[in-house]
C-alpha cells in the first residue's frame, strides 16, 4: 500500500530535498507540503496523511507542539521528526523511542524510518516536550472538532474553566472544549494564566478590573469580554495588590 506523506519544514530547500528523496523510494507519495505547524494541522485534517515528516525547529509553533496537536485527530498520522542539530530533542527522541532523521537525510534512513513510522501517543509527546522547559509551553491549545483540530492561539484566550470531564476555553471567537485538565494548564501556562477560583484560570494580560456586586461577591473584568468571572474573596485582595486594579 502506498504511504501518503506530508512534509513539514519552514525551509524550502529542505522540503524540496525530502520530496525528491521520497520520489525515488517508491511505495510512497507526497500528498502536501507545509511551512508551519498551523498549516500542517490544517492539511493533516483535510488530507489524512499516513506519515508526517516534521521539522523540529520552526518559527512560531515548533514541530514538537504541532505533533502534540496532531495526536488529537481521530486517526492521527505517524510522525517522524527531522532535525539538523538539536541536542535536547535528540536525547528526548531516544528516551521516548520516537523516530527521527538527521538532516541532510539519507535515502536509506528515510526508507527505514517510513517503514517503522508509528503513531505517537499524546502523553508520550507531552513528556517529549517537557524535556526542554523552554519549549514545553505551547503557543496554541487544540480542540477536537469532528475530523479536524481547531487551534486556538493562547493570547486570544480569555479564560479556561473546568467543566466536569472537559475544560472550556473561552476565546475571542467563541468557546471550545479541550481535553487538557485545568491542573496541567495551570502548570504549563503559569506565566500567562492565573487561577482566580477553584475552577477557573484567567489570562493575566487581559485583567482590567475587579468589581464587587451588591451581594459582596467579587468578579474579574477581562478586556474584550462582557462576561464576569467570580473570584474568591481571598484572591480578590491579592489580585488588587499585584496588578494595581
Amino acid at each position: 500500500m502506498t504511504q501518503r506523506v506530508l512534509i513539514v519544514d519552514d525551509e524550502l530547500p529542505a522540503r524540496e530535498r525530502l520530496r525528491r528523496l521520497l520520489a525515488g523510494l517508491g511505495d510512497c507519495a507526497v500528498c502536501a507540503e507545509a511551512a508551519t505547524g498551523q498549516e500542517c494541522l490544517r492539511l493533516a485534517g483535510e488530507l489524512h496523511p499516513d506519515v508526517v515528516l516534521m521539522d523540529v525547529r520552526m518559527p512560531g509553533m515548533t514541530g514538537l507542539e504541532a505533533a502534540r496537536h496532531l495526536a488529537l485527530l481521530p486517526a492521527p498520522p505517524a510522525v517522524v521528526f527531522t532535525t539538523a542539530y538539536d541536542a535536547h530533542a535528540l536525547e528526548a527522541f531516544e528516551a521516548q523511542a520516537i523516530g527521527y532523521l538527521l538532516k541532510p537525510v539519507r535515502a536509506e534512513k528515510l526508507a527505514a524510518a517510513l517503514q517503522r513510522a508509528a503513531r505517537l501517543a499524546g502523553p508520550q509527546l507531552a513528556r517529549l516536550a517537557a524535556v526542554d522547559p523552554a519549549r514545553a509551553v505551547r503557543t496554541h491549545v487544540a480542540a477536537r472538532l469532528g475530523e479536524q483540530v481547531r487551534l486556538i492561539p493562547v493570547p486570544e484566550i480569555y479564560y479556561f474553566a473546568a467543566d466536569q470531564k472537559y475544560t472550556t476555553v473561552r476565546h475571542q471567537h467563541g468557546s471550545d472544549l479541550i481535553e487538557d485538565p485545568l491542573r496541567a494548564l495551570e502548570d504549563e501556562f503559569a506565566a500567562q494564566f492565573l487561577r482566580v477560583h477553584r475552577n477557573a484560570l484567567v489570562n493575566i494580560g487581559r485583567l482590567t478590573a475587579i468589581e464587587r456586586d451588591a451581594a459582596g461577591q467579587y468578579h474579574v473584568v477581562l478586556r474584550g469580554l462582557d462576561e464576569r468571572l467570580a473570584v474568591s474573596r481571598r484572591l480578590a485582595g491579592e489580585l488588587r495588590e499585584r496588578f494595581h486594579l
Partner: protein
Amino acid sequence: MAEAGRRPQPLRTDPQDRDPGAPHRLNLPDFCAARAVLAVVLIVTLTAIVLTVARQTSALRFWLDLARTSLFLLWTGLGSAAVLCLLRQRLAAMALAAASAIALLGVLAVIAVVSVAVLWLGSSALLGPRAANLLQPESPWRFLGANLGIGVIVGGLALRYFYVTGEWRRNVELQARARVHALQARIRPHFLFNSMNTIASLTRSDPARAEEAVEDLADLFRANLNEQRSSITLKEELEVARIYQRIEQLRLGERLQVVWDVADLPMRALVPGLLMQPLLENAIYHGVEPRAAGGIVTVSGALDGDTIGLTVRNPLPEAGDAAHSGNRIALANIRERLELLYPGRSSVEANRLGDEYIVRLRFPYVQDTARTLAL
C-alpha cells in the same frame, strides 16, 4: 500575555568589576595579607644592609648604622603597608592617575611622620645621651628632605612595577578568556548542518548555486579556523559577513533581508577577526529565523572623528526571549578581542529598544599599514 512583566528594558550588560575588560586601574598587592607584610620586612632589611654597606663605615659603626637604618626603614615600610592596606579598596575604585598620586602621598606622609619621630626622639632626653647622639642627624631639614626624596623615587618605581605586573597579568587573563570564548563562539552546529542540507538539496535542483555555496562555506570555515590572525582589515571582515549572509539567504529565502549601510567606513581599518560575522549570525538566529514572516537585519557603520562605530539591529523574536546564552558568549568574546587589540579604547553595548535588539561597537580607527600596499 503579561504585558506588565514584558516591558522592554535595557539588557543587563556584564558586570564591570573583576572584568579584565574594565578601564585600567592601579593594581596593588594586598598589603593586609601576611605574605605581603613578610615580603615588606625582607625587602626593608635587605635595603638597610645595602645602604649601610654603601656608606663604607668602620666595622664598629657598621652594626650601629645597620641597626638604625633598618629600624627607620622598618617603621617606614610597615607604616606604608598599613596605609596602603587601609586605602586599597578606595584606590581600586579610582582612576589610575589619582590612585597613584594618593598612594605615593600616603607613603611620603609615613616617611615624614617617621622622620619627625626620629628627630623628636633624638632631641629629647628620653633615651639617654648615647642613643640621642646616634639618632641625632647633623641637619634636621636635610634629613627630612633626603628621606622624602628617596621616598618619591622608590615609591614611584614600586608603583610603576605594580602597574606593569598588573597589566601583564590582566593581559594574560584576557587572552586566556578570549581563547576559551572563541572556542565556544565557533559557528553553530545548527548552521553547519542546515547549510549541508541546503547544499544537498541544491546539488540536484541548482548545481551552480550548490557549487557557490560550497565555496562560501569553505571560506567561512577558513576564516573561523584562522586563530593566528588576530586582526584583519574591516574590508576582509565585512566580506566574511557577506559570505555568511549568502549562505543563510539560500536557506531562508525572502524571509531574510540584510541592509548594508557601510559605504562610509574606512575599509583599511584594523579589526579583530570575526567581529561582524558572529553578530550577524546572532541577529539572524534570534531575530529572523524564529519569525514566520522573517525580518530585516540592518548593519550600519560610520567614522566619527577617529572612532569607528558599527551597529547591528534585528527585530525581536515574536516570543520575546532575546538574550540567549549563545548571544552573551558572542558579545563577551567580541568585547574581549576588541579590548586586546585596543586596550581601554573600545566598547560593546547591547540593548533592547522598542521591538528591536541593537548591538553597538566602538573602537579607534587604526589603519592596517602592513597590508595597505597589498590592497
